[in-house]
């Protein structure tokens, strides 16, 4: 049973049908149904998944381009499945949240479904060629979501987003081709090569030149940290978020950023121990991580636009992913993976809150808001929950992830953890400061009469909040499968003891 390809194909078919529909009612119904079917399939995968095996499960492989050795090879393991699940939770909820979209609705929902196709493909494909194709597919619908439904500076932002991430993918593509040609042919007689991901990653270690190894490593890393994004390659993100429509922002922050993080675990960590100078590279990753955490925090503090603030908070949170990955301790790595999952849920709530406020009050500038809790009590409640989760309140999923990362990274990277701890107070600072000025206090009468979020918007956010609390109280189902893979990744690095300083 080719369940994974089915899971990817259904939103694709749904997208095509959605483009052809004539009314927005049809479009959103089809979008919801097809993304929902995908969700059901992934839940089925979850129920059949064995979390004690680190190898990919539900493997399927079909030959595609024989002469190049390209196969449509899919499978999920503890790294991929949580993100597949996340994608399939976020997309239907985004459709629900955007239930009221009126502008070219069929295209809007169709593009959302295409995003789902792209991210699911990235998280499941085990062939570098196919991986890269899906990686690029993701860009195109997002470009259109920003440039067609975006705000006043949408053209600038869309282009910036596209160029930034595209340049990064091209650098990554170069590295993939280098790996492809440096790896020994699978069949020494015919010289047949393969794009199989595991095969290429395994053959990384037999490359002779340490400089070439490091170059490949850095090229791949560059591809991923631009996507994450990490300081100093992050400036596309706030611009893209500010201009993107809410649904676009949600997908961008919840899923597209996770592709970068996914690359860290799928591709970077398996080759890190065999690179030319692992110690220096780990330090580099840790420095980038800590810069992102602190930089994102302080810049969030400086923002006047609520959505831009949330965008910077994403940068800060993704820094934890990098930090946990660089520490190379089983629980720090699985904590970092959990951070991706958890941030995916939390950031949705934050961006949805911004969207509702923008829609209702007509502005997102924190200083122009004030006291909106009076007229938007439901939104204020859910937004508060989202903000608290984002600042790492225990009993919500963000805390589990950050706690695991901090506690375990201290073993190998103590200095960096201490620096990260400094950031926590300021993280709380910008969240609460924004809440105080935007949501609480006296009502700003200049806003006129504003209304609470629509039922479907509130419902989507409430489901997410419940999930955040659920995974905060009971992280084990997801965390266990991550830990299995994290153990395996760290076992690869067993020879590195003492290299890290």
């Amino acid at each position, binding site marked *: 049973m080719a369940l994974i390809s089915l899971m990817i194909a259904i939103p694709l078919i749904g997208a095509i049908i959605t483009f052809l529909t004539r009314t927005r009612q049809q479009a959103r119904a089809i979008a919801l149904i097809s993304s929902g079917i995908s969700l059901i399939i992934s839940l089925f995968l979850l129920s059949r998944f064995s979390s004690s095996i680190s190898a990919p499960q539900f493997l399927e492989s079909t030959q595609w381009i024989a002469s190049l050795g390209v196969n449509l090879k899919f499978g999920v393991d503890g790294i991929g499945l949580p993100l597949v699940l996340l994608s399939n939770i976020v997309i239907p909820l985004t459709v629900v949240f955007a239930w009221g979209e009126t502008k070219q609705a069929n295209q809007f929902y169709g593009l959302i479904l295409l995003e789902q196709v792209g991210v699911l493909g990235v998280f499941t494909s085990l062939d570098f060629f196919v991986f890269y194709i899906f990686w690029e597919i993701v860009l195109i619908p997002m470009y259109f979501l920003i440039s067609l439904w975006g705000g006043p500076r949408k053209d600038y932002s869309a282009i910036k987003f596209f160029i930034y991430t595209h340049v990064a993918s091209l650098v990554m593509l170069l590295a993939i081709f280098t790996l492809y040609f440096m790896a020994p042919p699978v069949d020494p007689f015919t010289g047949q090569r393969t794009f199989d991901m595991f095969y290429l990653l395994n053959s990384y270690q037999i490359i002779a030149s340490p400089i070439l190894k490091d170059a490949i490593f850095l090229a791949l890393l560059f591809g991923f940290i631009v996507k994450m994004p990490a300081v100093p390659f992050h*400036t596309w993100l706030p611009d893209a978020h500010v201009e993107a429509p809410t649904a676009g922002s949600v997908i961008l922050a919840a899923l597209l950023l996770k592709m970068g993080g996914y690359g860290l675990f799928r591709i970077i960590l398996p080759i890190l121990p065999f690179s030319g100078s692992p110690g220096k590279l780990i330090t580099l990753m840790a420095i980038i991580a800590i810069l992102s955490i602190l930089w994102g925090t302080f810049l969030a503090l*400086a923002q006047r636009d609520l959505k831009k603030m949330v965008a910077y908070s994403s940068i800060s949170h993704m820094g934890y992913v990098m930090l946990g990955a660089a520490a190379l301790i089983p629980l720090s790595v699985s904590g970092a993976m959990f951070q991706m999952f958890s941030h995916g849920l939390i950031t949705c709530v934050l961006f949805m809150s911004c969207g509702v406020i923008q829609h209702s009050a007509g502005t997102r500038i924190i200083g122009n808001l004030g006291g909106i809790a009076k007229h938007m009590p439901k939104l204020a409640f859910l937004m508060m929950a989202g903000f608290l989760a984002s600042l790492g309140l225990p*009993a919500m999923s963000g805390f589990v992830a950050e706690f*695991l990362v901090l*506690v375990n990274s*201290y073993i190998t990277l103590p200095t960096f953890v201490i620096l990260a701890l400094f950031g*926590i107070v300021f993280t709380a600072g910008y969240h*609460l400061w924004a809440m105080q000025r935007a949501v*609480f206090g006296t009502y700003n009468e200049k806003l006129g009469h504003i209304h609470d979020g629509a039922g479907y918007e509130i419902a989507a956010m409430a489901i997410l909040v419940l999930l955040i609390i659920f995974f905060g109280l009971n992280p084990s189902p997801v965390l266990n499968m991550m*830990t299995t893979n994290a153990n395996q990744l760290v076992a690869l690095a067993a020879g590195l003891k003492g290299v890290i300083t």
Partner: protein
Amino acid sequence: MFSDYAALIVLLPVIGFVLTLFLGKKLPSGGAYIPIAAILGSFIISLGIFLEIYPDKVIQQSWNWFAGMNLGILIDPLAIVMLLMVSFVSLLIHIYAVGYMAHDPAKPRYFAETSLFTAAMLAVVLSDNVLQFFIAWEIVGLCSYLLIGFWYHKPAAAAAAKKAFLVTRVGDVLFLAGIVLLYVNMSQIIASHAFTLPQGNFILQFKSMFDAIPQIDPRQLTYITLLFFGGAVGKSGQFPLHGWLPDAMEGPTTVSALIHAATMVTAGVYLVARTFPMFVAAPDSLLVVAYIGGFTALFAATMGIVMNDIKRVLAYSTVSQLGYMMLALGTAGIAIGAKAVGISVFHLISHAFFKALLFLCAGSVIHAVGTNDIREMGGLFSKMKITAITMIIASLSLSGIGVPLIDLGIPVNIATSGFFSKDAIIEGAFEFGDKTGNFIPYIFAILAALLTSIYIFRLWFMTFSGTPRSEKHAHESPNVMTIPLIVLAALALLFGYSQTGFYNYLEKNFRLMNVFVPVHQEASPPSLIITLLPLIMGIAGLLISYAIYHRRMLDMSKLVSSQNPLYKLLIKRYYEPGLSADIIGVKITHGVAAQSGEFVDRKIIDGLIIDNVISNSLIKFGDVAKKIQTGVVQNYASIVLLGIGLLVILLMLGGA
């Protein structure tokens, strides 16, 4: 049999929270009866468990959670007395709030949040591991944030809520850092086989931590305990993180009574008491605890004298009394060992009763008069007899006044509970001085005792005696409010008599977990003057206040003016709000750090590098390079022909 339901102690108020939140609007009194019933349930279970385990049993339950951590319940003497106090005081305050909040439209939210708070506070108390402790501790902080900002439409309340959360967050981060350090040390000694974790035990359980103390490097232990104490400083409003607690008075008075007097702020003291074996193993940390506690006790009392907001006086009083509890843990911990926990927690509980009572009385007054400013009160005694009398009981208890008949040879003292609990602390501080030659903590404590008595009776006389200073029409509060006052007043009077039994019960606490905490020999009883000095201070303060604020024997207008630098310093609260909010918060963090980051992002990364260096140079290169393409087809055709000609020539040369 009650012990099987220990988890319900926490779960009942959680259920109460959910039900009240969603159903409260449809029920009478905002659904207040749901949390009251739930907390009553918690109290009954706690009481049942107490009867079951007294005098020498401990309940431990533990469930696997995630990544080698656990959820668990530990009910030992320390926990059970706290459980009883928290659930009982919370119950009374909930009942009181039915009357106090009767006219507030947002009652369901209020009762839901206080119910959640009670659940979290109970979870703090019965945690068996430090992670769960921290989680509950943070949720307690969250509820404090939500309830301080309960009237969120008031800008001052919103700001105070934020300040409370952020300042305690500083402490929480230190606490978290302590947990990180502890976890790392524990996992290292486990990895090196210096210490084995018994089957069924978890790495962050208190039991495992205590067992591992001998194996942990003492310097690391000092860091860990200092970081833990950092958390306690934040939560318990100790210097220098004390500033949030007076501001927190923006919340409803019931919230101040519940959270900022009786329960949450004592969580810091409870943390130090809970991890006391670690502190004992790190005497340097204990000394820090003693100094910070003693200094805070005095420091906060100085500001309590000048405040005019009835609740702020009480808030500073709370800070000061929490300082006493810390002082007890520090000095007595060094001087007399294990008994220090008993001394400190005894004061904690007696303080919970009389300070909750003080706040509720203040609430009753505010409810009646409609202002917080004691300068606008006065002469309320005849109008609010129950409130006035219960409040004077609480004030006597706070200033530790009683008749020490024992010293006259009669076997029973007639005294308030504060007399018993506070005396023991000051005596502990004296004993510490006696043993180490360091009397500084003792001097802090004894001066603070004088100031305490002055400010609390100033408060009482300003409020209840003399003639009314405003036109407000006051009346006694309804029964639902006065009955909790009377119950608490009875406790404030009588709780002290459990002193000996209480000390003995708590002294066993760590021994029941097979953890060794040294018990030092108590010195011979100090001279009579030392024993009586705290009482003398209390009575002196009472007399001073009586003279100034009742008989008006002194003209205070010279002293109380902005011309007087000392008064100005005190009324400005040592410039702490300006320092923390304006300078650190706004100017340095937001103004300098954040804006310079913004500058780098916008002007350097985006402006200079992306726009100028990369974009512009590419555009310029394109401008030059495009000239090659003339766009005239004939030029291309000539070049094609030229190319073909060259090829032909090359082929001919090659062929030849």
